């Protein structure tokens, strides 16, 4: 009767002086898996513009219908998205937009920290999608 009690005490004592396995989150982070689907980003062309041609396939394929695309044409006849917006509060990170894209413009990134005080502040538009590229250096 006494021996198991002492065994238990010994176990907790040894665990007490072992190194905690806690990850101290804001200071140290566990990197996401290589195929992790986080917040999207835009691939840029040589001039730093988005490669997106505004075909709207991502808008069609998106199951939660969180992507809005409006297309325009510039002077050289190049089509570009005059308005591209992802409602990130509704995105389910399925990755269909990445699969559907015919010009490899949009990708699922590695970022998962996405906070703001207003909903509008965390929506992704063209500029912010291009900015997101710097969090995903490998792709």
């Amino acid at each position: 009767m006494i021996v198991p009690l002492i065994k238990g005490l010994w176990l907790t004592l040894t665990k007490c002086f072992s190194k905690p396995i806690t990850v101290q989150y804001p200071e140290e982070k566990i990197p996401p898996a290589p195929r992790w689907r986080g917040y999207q980003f835009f691939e840029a062309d040589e001039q730093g513009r988005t490669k997106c041609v505004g075909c709207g396939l991502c808008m069609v394929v998106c199951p939660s219908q969180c992507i809005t695309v409006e297309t325009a044409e510039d002077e050289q006849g190049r089509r570009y998205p005059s308005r591209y917006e992802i409602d990130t509060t509704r995105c389910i990170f399925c990755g269909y937009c990445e699969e559907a894209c015919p010009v490899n413009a949009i990708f699922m990134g590695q970022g998962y920290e996405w906070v703001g005080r207003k909903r509008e502040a965390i929506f992704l538009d063209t500029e912010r999608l291009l900015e997101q590229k710097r969090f995903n250096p490998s792709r």
Partner: protein
Amino acid sequence: MSLLYLLIEMVIKCVVVFGCLMLAVAYMTLFERKLLGHIQIRFGPNRCGPFGLLQPFADGIKAFFKEDLIPGRSDKALFVLAPMISITSAIIIFAVIPFGNEFVLPGTNYVVKLRLADVDIGLLYIFAFASIGEYGIILGGWSSGNKYGLIGSLRAAAQMISYEVALGLSIIGVILLSQSLRLTEIVHLQAGGFWNWNVWYQPMAFLLYIVCGLAEINRTPFDMPEAEAELACGFNIEYSSMKFALFFMAEYAHMITMGAVAVTLFWGGWQPPLPSLAFVPGVVWFVGKLFVFLFFFIWQRGTFPRLRYDQIMAFGWKVLLPLTLINLIITALVEAFKG
């Protein structure tokens, strides 16, 4: 004039002891959370200040600013009184604990005794107030008008009765050895090295005292009155804000006093473990030994699961009580044959 000096001395000692006790209670909560964290291979609180050292104050400030609710169907007078009874009886025990020997104030011939009161029925005083502390729990649970609170306080009452008997009987062996209820005398008799400590003469009583003491302060293997899983915190379920904090502080203050009494009775109080180590002040030894006990109280909390209610009752009446009685009889016989 000497009366004035005595008054000043008493006031200073009271303030220092009270302050140290409250600080110890505050840091006990942090120490417990840290140690439990490390036992569970976590860190414990480490966000408030370096190593989380400001956490007790953050908790205290938070408790102050919480809404202070008194349930409509409660007995309001008793509901307010219960936490006060708890904290008062827990703190008041420390008045008779001798935490050091006397010393002469440098530059004068004024002798300062390191204890608040040297009562000749010190042990009786301690156990009287330790029992009154339970009334706080019983009244608190009952007056809140909550069924969980009521069950918690019923359990507290039952547990108090069954373990108080064994607790009282376990220390009678020590009283037989030292022929005195005065705590300073009990400590003086244990002078001259660790082999003179009562724990070697009364090992069984020491173990029984620790077990019964844990039950008395409602520590984890015996924390029936506030069994979280089944009673949703038991007696203090309706308490919020500073009233809850008072119960909380009372629990830790009670734990510290239980440790202090164990040190005084069994581990030689302020006496150094070896006579050659007498140059270290007695207070240091006292605090050091007390720390060992507090560490054990938390350590076993992180180890043992809560017992079932009927097991606790059976253990108290069918195991602990006979063991203490046997221990008492053997001690009495040995003392009688020694002459």
